Each structure stands twice: as C-alpha cells, then as structure tokens.
C-alpha cells in the first residue's frame, strides 16, 4: 500500500515546466523577459499565475491591461480544466518547457470563461467535487461534511498542502466493501479532434456479473475508437497525468488514485505523434 500512497504523492506533486511569453502585440515600455514556472498538474492556471501577472505588469502600461488570458499555439487555454489536462491534451509530445503566450487584450469571450477572482475557481472546484460525489455516493458524503471541511479541501488545493487535502479527501474516496467500488466512476474523456468538450457517462466499476471493470472496458463502452484495432497500428494514446496506464488497470483503483483533486478521472485521448 505504500506504493499507493506514493502514487498519490506523485500525482499531487506532478509539475510541468512552463515558459510564459508576452504576446508580441502587447504595447510594452520595454522588452518583456520570459517568465518560467513549474506548474502543478492538479491546479488551475489562474490559481498559480499571480506571479506571471505581476511580472508582466511591470512592463506594460497598467491602464492598458485587461484580464489576463493564456494561449498555446493559437488555442486559448481554458482555466477551468486542470493544468495537467491542458498540457496532455495540447502539448504532451512537444519540446519542453511548455511555451504559453500571455495576453492582456482581446479576451476571447467565445472560448474562455472570465475568472475575476479565486472565489470563482473555488466555486468551480467545489461544484466538481459535489458532482463527482453525487455519482459516487449519491452526494451523501459531501453533504455530511461541514462548511469548514469544504474549506479545508479548497485550502489544501490553493496552498498545495497534500496532507491537509487528503485528510478530508479520504472520506470522499471511501465506499462500502460489499459494493466493491463507487456507484459510478466520475470520469471525463477529453479529445482533441472533436467539438465536444468531453465525454461523460454513467459507468459502474463492477459489471453486473461481478467482474471488475478495467480502463479498457470503459473505453470499449464509451469511446471504442480510442482502442487499438486488432493487428493495426496504435492510433491513439490514452493519457492520464502524463502517463499511459495499461488498459487492464482496474477502473476503481484509477478513480481512487489517479483522480484530480476535483474527484474526476480526467482521461485525454490524443493521436499518436506522426513522427
């Protein structure tokens, strides 16, 4: 079990080296130096980029500055997806560090949500947790928690406190032993090629016959295209937290250990790089 705890720590402390560059179109008083950061995979862009904002505010006229937003190779980055998901989805096979362009103008209203303060992130985060618990325990666990318990979850994420977060999150991961798992596995499958933002369906961790469902079973059920065809070349990578778990991995275990702090198992299906 010590391995499982290590897996949780590795998932929590996963980092992506990132280089923030100011958009060339921004009016600056002098040339802006790039800013480098190690972004936590489990956090949100707008939650960890206060330093970036401060850095670039030094060089642009502050009265010109509007809400900061980020873009990678022409794609606006949605702050309400975890950072790891954004990276895996858009830049998993590129050269590191991940170069993100910072904008202070022309906010893409169609693609992005506004994020005026951290309380918006908190609201989004808590709503995800509640949704996931509705799937896992019919909301029983999260409703039994007190306000301060909810706060503890959020503060654990905001301040990158692993122990503080998991002291409370442990309750959300419990299930009756006789059931063999959660009611439904809260998961989301992201893909680059579709207009749909993600796939989310009700899927039980154990089959009616009592077999343990695996990652492969899930994909076969909801997104069979992602599976390698018999004898054909591998066309898609199934990436969680920057790694490709074996398809035989039990889904319940994945949900317990490889879920993001918002209790969802975010799975990215990306095409295999051509080269």
């Amino acid at each position, binding site marked *: 079990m010590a391995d499982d705890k290590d*897996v949780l720590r590795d998932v929590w402390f996963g980092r992506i080296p990132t280089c923030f560059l100011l958009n060339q179109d921004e009016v600056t008083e002098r040339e802006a130096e790039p800013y*480098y950061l190690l972004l936590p995979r489990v956090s949100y862009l707008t939650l960890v980029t206060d330093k970036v904002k401060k850095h670039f505010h030094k060089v642009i006229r502050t009265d010109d500055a509007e809400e900061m937003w980020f873009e990678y190779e022409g794609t606006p980055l949605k702050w309400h997806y975890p950072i790891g998901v954004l990276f895996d989805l858009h830049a998993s096979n590129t050269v590191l560090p991940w170069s993100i362009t910072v904008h202070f103008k022309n906010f893409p209203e169609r693609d992005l949500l506004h994020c005026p303060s951290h309380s918006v992130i908190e609201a989004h985060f808590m709503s995800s947790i509640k949704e996931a618990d509705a799937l896992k325990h019919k909301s029983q666990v999260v409703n039994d928690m007190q306000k301060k318990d909810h706060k503890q979850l959020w503060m654990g994420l905001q301040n990158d406190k692993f122990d503080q977060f998991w002291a409370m999150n442990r309750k959300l991961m419990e299930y009756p032993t006789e059931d063999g*798992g959660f009611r439904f596995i809260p998961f989301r499958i992201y893909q680059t090629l579709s207009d749909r933002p993600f796939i989310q369906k009700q899927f039980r961790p154990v089959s009616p016959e009592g077999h*343990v469902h695996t990652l492969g079973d899930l994909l076969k059920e909801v997104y069979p295209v992602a599976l390698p065809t018999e004898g054909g070349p591998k066309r898609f990578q199934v990436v969680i937290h920057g790694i490709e778990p*074996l398809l035989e991995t039990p889904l319940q275990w994945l949900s317990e250990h490889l879920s993001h702090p918002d209790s969802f198992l975010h799975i990215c299906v990306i095409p295999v790089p051509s080269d």
Partner: protein
Amino acid sequence: MASGALRGGGRAAETRWRRHIVGQLKLRDRRQHDKFQDLIRFYTRLLEKTSLTPARCPSSDSSLSALLHQNNQLKNTTGELAYQVVQLQQQIRVKDSVLDEQHARQQQEEPLLQGAFDSRLALQGRVETVRGDMGALKSDYDALLERQRGAETKLREEKLRGGNLLQDVIHLKQQEAANMNTRNERRCRAREAARSKVTVETSGSAPTSRSSSPKRESERRLFRSASATSPRILSSIRALFQRRRGQSVSSLQEDQLFAVGVCLSARLPVRALHVLEAHEQGINAVRFNSSSELLATGGTDRAVKLWDVRAGSLTHRATLDGSTEGVTCIEFDPKGPRVLAASYDKSALLWRLDDPVPKVTLTGHSRKVTAARFGLNLQVVTGSADRTIRLWDLQRACCVQVVEVPSYCSDLVCTGYCIISGHYDSKIRVWDTRAVRCIQELPAHGKVTSLDISPDHRHLLSCCRDDCLQLIDLRGRSYERVCFRADGFKCGSDSTKAVISPDGCFLAAGSADGAVYIWNVSTGNLETRLPDKHSTSISAVSWSPSGEYVVSVDLSRRAVLWRDF
C-alpha cells in the same frame, strides 16, 4: 485498501499494471520536473535580481555634460538638504525638550489623575448606595403617603360623624336644659309658695312652742333676726319643729323607723336573687336602710339611686341627683328618712328620700370627700382626701369643727363621742370629738380602704390593701385584733368596702376576682365564697340589718342581691 478486492484477480497481473503506473510516473517526473526544477529556480532568482537594478541605462557619451550638470545640481541639492537636516535636527531638539517637559508634567499629573479616578469611583459607589437608600426611602414614603391619605379620608369621615354626633348631643342638651329650666322654675315657684306657707305655719305654731320651751323661742327669735328670708334656715327651723313635735308626739313614720331593732341572727347568703345593671358607670357604694326595705347605691355616674327590696328583687324607686361628681359613700340616717352621700366634688350631700334635689350640701373640703357618717346630735362627720375630718351641724348646715389628720382619710365611723378613721398611712386613729385629739392610734397592715362598726358598737372591721380584714375589739383598752384572710381574696381598690353582719357573726367583703367572701368571726375561717356573678372587681357589699340580704356592687355597673335561699 480499495484494491484489496481486486487482488483476487492474480497477483502477477495486479502488480504489472501498478508497477507500470509507478514507473511511468517516475519517468514522467524525471523528464518534466527534475530536469527543469533547478534551472527555473535559478532563472527566477536572476530575474528578480535584474529587476532590482536600475531599469534604464543611458547609453550616450554626449550626455556627459548633462551628467556633470546633473551632478552639480545634485550637489546643490545635497547642500540644501544638509542645511535642512541641520535645521530639522534643531527643531527636533527643541521638540524633544518640550516633549520631555510634557512627559514630566504628565508624570506629575498622573498620580493626581489616579487620585481623582479613585475618588470618582468612591463617589460613584456612594451615589449607588445613596440611590439605593433613596429608592427604599421613596417606597417607604409612598407607603406612608398612602397610609396618610387613607387616614385623612377616615379622619374626614370621623370628623363628619363627630360633627353630627355633636349636633345631636347639643340638641339633646338643649332639650335637657329647657326641661331643667322649666323644672327649676316650677320648683322655685313651689318654694315661694312653701315659704309663704311656712311663715303662716310659724306664726300659727309659735304659741305652742313658746309654752313648751321658752329657750327655743328665744333661739327662734335670734334666727329670725339674723335672716328671716334664708330658705335653708327656714327649712332647718322646720326640721326643728318637726323633730320637736316627733319628740312630743311620736308619729307613725318614726315608729316604723325604730321598730326594727337589732337583728338576732344573720343568715348566710347562698344564691343570687337578682342581678342588674344598676348604674350607667361603676358603683362605688351601697347601703341598706335600717328597715332593710330600701337600698341606696351611689356610682361614678353622680347619681344616688334608691331601690325597693321586695320579694327578692330590686325595684328602682328614685334617683337622687345633685352631685356633680361620682359618689363615694352612702349612709342612711338611722333616725329619719334621709340619706347622706359623700362625693368626689368635695362635698357631702343630704337628701330627703322623697325629694330628688339635695336638701343640704356641705361644702368646705378642698379635695374629694371619702366618707360621710351621721354622728351625735344631728351632726355629720366627713372624712376627706385633704387630710381633714370635718364635723358639720346639719341645722346650721355649716362646719363646726375641723380636725387635721396626718394622712389621707379613706373612711371613718362614729361611735358615741369617738370618731374612728382609717388612713392611707396604714393607721386607724380614734378621735375624741370633745377634746379634738387623737386618743389612740392602731396599726393596720396596709392602706385602710374601709371601716365598719358592728351594730352593738363593740367591734370595728377594717379592710386593708394587704388583702386582710381586721376585726378590732373596741371594748377595754387593749384593742385586740383578729385578722381574716382567704385564698383568692384580693382587695380590689383603695376604697373597697367590707362589712360586719348585723348579728356580728360574719364578715363580708368583695374581692378583685368578682366573688363575695364571707368569714365566720367565731372560727376565723372562710365560711363561703360566692363567685361567678360579677365579672370585675367588687367595690362594696352591704348586709341588710335584718340579716336577710347581702348586696354586692362592682365597678362594671352591676349590683347583685344575695339571699340564703
């Protein structure tokens, strides 16, 4: 823990996917994290350092002169600033001294302030207590005010009632006065008529008297020359004549008076025949007449009442008024139809039995008269609280002798030429009226409240405040004394009157407990006790000369007639 259920599937397969994940994660971190960690940290630190250095660097040589100029300007500025610094330092010094001064003052003021605070707290405490007291007083005051209001309304009602009552009383008094006036007028007219009659009578009877007693004739002349118009003298003259006539020709009335004689045996009373409220206030004195058919009572209500003793009951016959204060003592004239009373109004009064207006009023004492007795030779002897005994001549209606006694005289009796008086100084004194001196002083045990002499004039009974009756043998010179006491007998007042039975065998006295006590003289023991009829202290008893009845009276207006069956 959660994967426990999954382990059944096969340890090898289970560890494979787990190992794969752990390995992948390590690989991922090595590639993405570890390689860049230090690099990014150093870069960030470098960036912070560069941001601290001046951002802009002038790059032109031609700006040297500008720099020099700037330098000069800066020097000037430095000088100015130095000067300002000096000035400011000076100001600081001044301010510091001021500040020090103020600190010193503040330190001086602080104890004062503290003292003031303390006294303020103390005063606040006092204010609180005083306020509490005031609240309590206020509530008391309110209660009192309420009571006062109630009392005032009551007072007003009472005043109104008092006024009404006063009106009623005044009205009644007026009626009474009118009645009295008419009565006086009538009496006056009657007296006028009587006077003219007497004059006629005198002139008519003069020859008879002259023939029988020339001496009296001269006396009569003397009176006439003194004052022919005085009604009192006239009446005394009339009495004289009556008396003289009585001596010469014994009338029917006088036969009656002297027929009774001495009682041979007194019978012990046993039963109360008649109980009545005889007066309006307490009764002080009671006395049978010599025929035992008439009873006189005198009370604090100023009246002397006469009662017929007939068939075992008392019937009111007449009320004799004239006294302006309470009556203290009553005696019937053994030789005539007259009754004598002593009064609180410093006088003694004499009535005829058929006239409610006093015939003679003897005035001269300076305090209340406690005893009045008939003596020898138409004399009356009175004892008084003014420490005198006076002898009065009834014919002249004046005082003939004043005997100064050493103490308050509470009662007296007459026997021959002797007067025996009882006093508050616990002495019984025997006086000779002819020599006007005390011939004997007998001791008693306490204040003497009453005296009584036996009909044969052999024994004297005295009642004292020490609840003891004393019987003194008057025969011989030895004055032997016997004391009579009884359990329960208590002398109720300073004027309680005890009596000897007419046969001299018994003594009767009323006690403070409302019972009549009767002793046997020969055995010296208590013979009987008559309780339950009186509710207050008995003031006097009287034994009828016939020996048949005893009457007791008390201070709550009640009179009880006792008899042996």
